[in-house]
């Protein structure tokens, strides 16, 4: 019985983490892009910091930050981020890098989306419903961007027919669904390039300024949550806007295509 108790104590206690570590909530699109696998080892090497990634939608990431369950966020929903900082949950918002959203669809393009000249035209064409459209539906950054795009084209999501499918899932799961159904879907470019199950999907629309996708870093405000590692979060922010991050982000390529562009200002 004593050995059993000792074993239990060991099993429960050895889970404690010792080295300097920081919890960072990131969006599924950032994690699925594979950039984390490049940045985290460099951060470990240069800052001696273990960054623990919590991969969630931007909506949930903001919730985690609000509750003080993470030390910092790397998200992509500018207006929600501004509100988060304005209400005192985040210390400051720092733009780090960008990529763009793309509209994906089946290769035969039944809605002829590829002939659109602007994002708003493309979304009007999508709303004709000639093929299903898979929406993230999880209040993530991509979902917020998608809603803004419908709004830009003066379209009401509530009035959409059964072709509009809210999956309530991460980027990869939404891509899997679209791929299996021959549906259209809005994705960030990085997740798409790193996605293994592309199948019959291809890019049907890209390159409009409305599809710009900015990623920002927010440290959780320590005045509300005195346990958050604000100093470490600041160190990480300084590193992310710095030179070595710029080189790593700008040189990160998949199949010859560049995924992100670093645009942080000092």
């Amino acid at each position, binding site marked *: 019985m004593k050995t*059993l108790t000792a074993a239990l104590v060991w099993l429960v206690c050895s889970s404690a983490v010792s080295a300097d570590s920081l*919890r960072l909530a990131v969006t599924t699109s950032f994690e699925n892009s594979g950039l984390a696998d490049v940045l985290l080892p460099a951060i470990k090497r240069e800052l001696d910091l273990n960054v623990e990634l*919590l991969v969630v939608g931007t909506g949930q990431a903001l919730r985690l930050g609000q*509750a003080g369950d993470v030390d910092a966020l790397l998200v992509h929903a500018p207006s929600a981020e501004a509100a988060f900082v304005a209400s005192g949950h985040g210390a400051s918002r720092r733009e780090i890098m960008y990529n763009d959203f793309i509209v994906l669809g089946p290769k035969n393009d039944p809605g002829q989306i590829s002939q659109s000249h602007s994002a708003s035209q493309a979304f009007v064409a999508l709303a004709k419903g000639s093929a299903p459209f898979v929406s993230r539906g999880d209040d993530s950054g991509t979902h917020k961007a998608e809603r803004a795009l419908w709004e830009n084209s003066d379209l009401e999501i509530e009035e959409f027919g059964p072709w509009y499918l809210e999956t309530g899932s991460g980027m990869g799961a939404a891509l899997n669904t679209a791929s299996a159904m021959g549906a259209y879907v809005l994705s960030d470019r990085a997740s798409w390039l790193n*996605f293994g*199950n592309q199948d019959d999907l291809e890019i049907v629309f890209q390159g409009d300024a409305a599809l710009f996708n900015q990623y920002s870093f927010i440290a959780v405000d320590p005045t509300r949550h005195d346990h958050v590692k604000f100093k470490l979060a600041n160190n990480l922010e300084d590193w992310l806007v710095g030179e070595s991050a710029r080189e790593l982000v700008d040189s990160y390529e998949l199949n010859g295509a560049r995924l992100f562009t670093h645009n942080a200002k000092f």
Partner: protein
Amino acid sequence: MTEIWDGITQAFFLVVSFDPDLVSITGRSLRVTVTAVLIASLIALPFGAWLAVRRFRFRRWAIALLNALMGLPPVVVGLIVYLLLSRSGPFGVLDLLFTPTAMIIAQVVIITPLIASIAHQALRELWAEYHDLLISLNTTKWQRMQILLWDGRRALITAALAGFGRAIGEVGAIMIVGGNIDNVTRVLTTAIALETGRGDFALALGLGFVLIGLSITVNLIIHGLSRTEQEGRW
């Protein structure tokens, strides 16, 4: 269909090459679940025995409730444990959220009713057999429970293994309270969910086969150790 074959080959290579990530993820899966099963058994087995021996007014209700709790939805358990352990929750100061300990807590909550219920079923039948003897020997309640627990140990191992099976394959709760953090709280099931999200079905399936293999191995080892098949009687 090729994906299933790819999955099998992936699983084979992952295991043969002793992939370090796979080893650490598998180790963590085992550690979390084995700890949860041990803790849950320490609570559930005596409780099951107590329920078999003891007669009280709301016994029927307690048993019905216990059986109903076997079907606790893991996602809801995860959400409740998350809210309790969150920094904004009542136990936030313990700083347990997104640690293996939080995952163990969630799994204990999920499997304790299951183990207790199966244990109770088995011990109730044993109790019907032992009832007259133990009463005539004028044993105390505590002695009766001890005897039942010892003589029913084989059935109780099955109860614990059922709990193990439910916990090792569980993903909803531990995803919420563990956060699927690489090298900290990533286990086999959450890794499978992650790779499916990345569209890497072969690797996801490969990890799935490793998980199934692990479950079978643990069951075989336990049954081997307890010699269920060698002896016909208690």
